[in-house]
């Protein structure tokens, strides 16, 4: 697609410290924890502290990305933050990030919303700007502090976390060979303005939404590149639960060794705009130069962005410059449901 080699100059993540287990939520609502864990394939999820939000997560991830990118922040020409929990309805998260990484003022910035694929939308935009030579480096971030209504099944999975990617032409830890998207107006999951919690179409969120778009985008990308599943070392997908990504991976023809390393949802939950990007970051933490990774996001509403990422030699020296995904996952403190409700401000005072 692009003549110029464009890719990831640096990447960084942030996952909050608190965790709540499925059992501790199920107990309150009188649900069968064992059944939920078996069907959603999730054990616990990440919960933000009272003083954390999508902006603070975005900043920490961005600072980590810059540590790996080794780029002067003043050279960042664009910042896009994708989230469905931006702290403000009007006033961009991207400018808070710009100030916090000292990238002001010679840049463009905006916030994106497209459910869980707002972060990858930012990656595509940066690829375009960098590829066209309009900017030297772009910063794309997916960060969320997602909310599930008390008692709703989403409560087990809606989590907090984020990942940031510095997109550029030089000093790449991985190049992005191509991107391909599938987008339709599919109302599977939404939140109206002013509402605290989202609503969804139940089983409608499966085949007509997640599976159709993820499959089409991933398959479309492979067709465009003339590649097949065996040409990839890893495949990582948006992870609303532990079941969906494994099912779509199998349908596309990927083996479990290609898919399992990128699965994080069982231990941190669905980090929404951060989900597929955190999965990519995990794979960059462990992959070797030459590995090819298929990344496919999904955002309700609905759409999927697929990327073919090829790991470059610079990953070896840059990888250790910031904490890894596993280091953030290992750093955890459990909370009970009462503390969880206080932290997520579900109690109105």
């Amino acid at each position, binding site marked *: 697609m692009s003549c110029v080699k464009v890719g990831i100059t640096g990447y960084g993540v942030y996952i909050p410290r608190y965790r709540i287990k499925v059992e501790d939520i199920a107990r309150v609502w009188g649900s069968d924890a064992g059944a939920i864990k078996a069907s959603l394939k999730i054990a616990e999820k990440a919960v933000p502290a009272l003083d954390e*939000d999508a902006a603070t997560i975005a900043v920490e991830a961005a600072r980590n990305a810059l540590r790996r990118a080794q780029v002067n922040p003043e050279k960042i020409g664009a910042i896009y933050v994708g989230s469905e929990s931006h702290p403000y309805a009007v006033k961009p998260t991207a400018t808070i990030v710009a*100030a916090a990484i000292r990238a002001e003022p010679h840049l463009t910035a905006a916030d994106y919303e497209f459910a869980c694929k707002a972060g990858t939308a930012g990656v595509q935009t940066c690829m375009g700007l960098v590829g066209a030579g309009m900017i030297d480096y772009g910063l794309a971030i997916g960060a969320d502090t997602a909310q599930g209504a008390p008692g709703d099944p989403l409560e087990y999975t809606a989590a907090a976390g984020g990942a940031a990617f510095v997109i550029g032409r030089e000093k790449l830890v991985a190049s992005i060979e191509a991107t391909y998207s599938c987008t339709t107006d599919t109302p599977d999951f939404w939140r109206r303005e002013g509402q605290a919690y989202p609503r969804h179409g139940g089983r409608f969120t499966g085949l007509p939404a997640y599976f159709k778009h993820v499959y089409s985008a991933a398959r479309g990308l492979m067709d465009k590149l003339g590649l097949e599943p065996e040409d990839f070392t890893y495949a990582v997908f948006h992870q609303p639960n532990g079941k969906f990504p494994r099912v779509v991976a199998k349908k596309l023809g990927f083996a479990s060794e290609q898919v399992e390393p990128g699965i994080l949802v069982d231990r941190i939950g669905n980090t929404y705009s951060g989900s597929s990007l955190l999965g990519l970051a995990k794979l960059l933490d462990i992959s070797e130069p030459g590995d090819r990774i298929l990344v496919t996001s999904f955002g309700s509403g609905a759409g999927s962005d697929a990327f073919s990422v090829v790991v470059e030699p610079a990953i070896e020296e840059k990888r250790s410059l910031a904490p890894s995904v596993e280091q953030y996952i290992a*750093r955890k403190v459990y909370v009970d449901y009462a503390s969880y409700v206080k932290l997520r401000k579900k109690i109105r005072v």
Partner: protein
Amino acid sequence: MGSIPRFWRNMQSRYNLIGRRCTRCGEVYFPPRNFCARCRRRGKLEEVQLSGRGEVVSYTVIRTPPEGFERQAPYVMALVRLEEGVMLTTQLVDVNPEEVEIGMRVESVFRKIQEDGEAGLIYYGFKFKPVEE
């Protein structure tokens, strides 16, 4: 509770620990000052970004919080001396109050300091957490 112009003027200090150093006597100021307290009119101040690494000089646990901090209570507040020699007042996060010790090494993180109710501005800035060995 906060003032918009005042917060905006201090934003780089709050977000990025930007202080000032006097080129004449070397004294580092954080928060930044416009006048070197030692050299006064003879001093010349330049911008300096602090490392964000330091150690705890003293600490307390606030149990009767001021307005805007009620939900966070009890929380740990500390005096932290940075590597550059200056000391600042900050909240310690990601730590149990019982685990805090004088001399503990800490590093800065980006968090919400306070917000002006549900409809007002959100004030972000630095807090500190223990350095993980």
